[in-house]
């Protein structure tokens, strides 16, 4: 059945990563990543801690700490690596951070309103409040968060909910969700997953970067990639996640035969 669905997608490629190599200082982290995401697809990038999978999402978003050493990335046909962070975001790329930073003194409301305004969606205050309240409700975020400083003193779960809330409001073309499931209890995981699924229903393509396959019980990928030593070591359908669940990452190390 999943194989059927997999075949139904077959949209245009929106993200094409070819032989991407990147490093921090003199340490090479990405060692030739290849990945193609088509419109409407959900991918899971899985791997051990330190395999480079989080680096991939930051390099795609344009984190200044990473140096791109080679390869090519096209996003909606454009050369992503030539765009700055702001341009990538405005072109429709979104990154759900594993550990979003706090910005003291900037309220969640002010931040979200400024972001929307900056992107040409200057909503009247009343309409904005309505949309915000609905999104808060959807993600189980208490109203008082509207007036709190962005991510400041938030628990891990609260931060993740706010990341998904931004995903909902910003309606990107492609969302990279970095370890969105880490540190969440089961209730939070369900709420956050439902938020991601709602975006998928809206047509957002998603790359889930995750260590565990836990979130995959709620958000179903079309394709699963196993990351190892800075590259995609194996790709497959959803069944690959189940094999990983049963056999761990070690069997990947063995040469495929």
């Amino acid at each position, binding site marked *: 059945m999943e194989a059927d669905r997999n075949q139904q997608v077959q949209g245009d490629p929106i993200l094409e990563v070819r032989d991407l190599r990147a490093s921090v200082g003199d340490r090479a982290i990405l060692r030739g990543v290849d990945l193609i995401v088509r419109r409407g697809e959900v991918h899971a990038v899985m791997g051990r801690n330190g395999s480079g999978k989080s680096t991939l999402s930051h390099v795609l978003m*344009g984190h200044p*700490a990473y140096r791109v050493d080679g390869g090519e990335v096209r996003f909606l046909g454009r050369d992503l690596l030539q765009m700055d962070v702001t341009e990538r*975001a405005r072109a429709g790329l979104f990154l759900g951070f594993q550990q979003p*930073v706090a910005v*003291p*003194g900037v309220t969640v409301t002010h931040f979200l309103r400024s972001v929307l305004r*900056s992107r040409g969606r200057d909503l009247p205050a009343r309409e904005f409040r309505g949309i915000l309240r609905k999104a808060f409700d959807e993600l189980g975020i208490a109203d008082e968060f509207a007036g709190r*400083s*962005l991510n400041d003193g938030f628990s891990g779960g609260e931060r993740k909910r706010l990341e998904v809330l931004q995903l909902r409001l910003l309606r990107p073309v492609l969302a990279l969700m970095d370890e969105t499931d880490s540190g969440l209890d089961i209730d939070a995981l369900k709420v956050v997953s439902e938020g991601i699924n709602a975006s998928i229903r809206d047509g957002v393509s998603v790359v889930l970067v995750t260590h565990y396959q836990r979130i995959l019980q709620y958000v179903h990928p079309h394709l699963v990639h196993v990351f190892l030593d800075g590259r995609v070591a194996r790709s497959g359908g959803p069944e690959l996640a189940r094999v990983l669940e049963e056999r761990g990452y070690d069997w990947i190390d063995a040469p495929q035969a």
Partner: protein
Amino acid sequence: MESSGAGSLVGDYQYGFHDEERSVFQTRRGLDADVVRQISALKNEPAWMLEFRLKALGLFQGRPMPRWGNTEVLDAIDFDRIIYYVRAMEGQGRTWEEVPEGIKRTFDRLGIPEAERKFLAGVTAQYDSEAVYHSIQAELEQQGVIFLDMDSGLRLHGDLVRQYFGTVIPPNDNKFAALNSAVWSGGSFVYVPPGVQVRVPLQAYFRINTRDMGQFERTLIIADEGSSVHYIEGCTAPIWSSDSLHSAVVELVARKGARIRYTTIQNWSKNVLNLVTKRAVAHEDATVEWVDGNLGSRLTMKYPAIHLVGPRAHGEVLSIAFAGAGQHQDAGAKVIHAAPDTTSSITSKSISKDGGRASYRGLVKVYPGARGARVNVRCDALLLDEDSRSDTWPTMEIGEARAAVGHEATVSKVSEEQLYYLRSRGLTEAEATLMIVNGFIEPFVKELPMEYAVELNRLIALEMEGAVG
């Protein structure tokens, strides 16, 4: 809106206005006893004030220049070049047409109302908002509140002024307090009778006679027992001054159980040396709060002080300083605990960019016997680039073992992680930086009345354009 204008508007203020020497009276350049006598005579002052001035002149002349702060700039002051008193006459000031385009544009971008602009630009000697002014003034009169310019205060309430004038900051306090005491003009005189709560903030705008508002302002505020008042000085519009030395003295007296908040937002043109002495005395159960925002000027040296002299008196100093290219903001606070169970908190925030320099200079002193005193000091500096500089000189003299003193200081740069995060949401680098800066000063801004908060945010945005992008 062209973007080229903004930087030069706020950045290159030294051009400001040119006074066409239309003033009806001004003293000659330089300072001696004759000049002081002339000023006093022109104001028809009582003999005691002339005596006070002359004595202060002697102290000023006898005192050496401070050897701290920014000595290079201080030493370059040529006191013989300064005109110490200028009186412009009604109808003979400059006209709106003479106001430079740059200043008009700044008013525009700051959203300053028409009537106010003319006042700020020196076209009208009075803030032309008669209706507002009269209704406030009527209510104040009914409550017995006195709110006058200092010259009128001296003329109409001589005994009250004499009782307090120079008692909080005596002329021999420092060289610039002595100078102000000798040549002061303008400023506010406020007296709030016992038990009276002044509902609306008193703003210098609304005074009857503001035409002498100038370089050597002298303000005295007395809140009698159990009363409360909020006074607001300045505004965010750039204040141009023909002479570059500004040296004010502000004295506050909060009697038993009284409460005074004194809010300052100043944006001096960038040729001005702003050397101000501000001090408050808080008696038993009284509260004094200085909310002090310093933008503009070439050099500001200002350390609002609170002397907690009665049990359970409370003091707060909350300040921000913004130092841009060529500017040095040397600001801070002094709190003296001289009675038991007194409490205070100092929060100082500074932003430096384009090589600007911001210093925190603070003194906390707890006298023996001030048992149960509690002090909390927090200084945060934000540097926007590698060329800018921040220094912290917190001095603590704790003479009482049963006192609790906390101090925390941070220096940070606009963090790359914060910029990255905000930009990943589609904000530009300039928008992201401004958002971080606004967040940094939010604890200050939230203490301001709404219209000032809005103006300050606009002003910070103008200061920041040019800084990035």
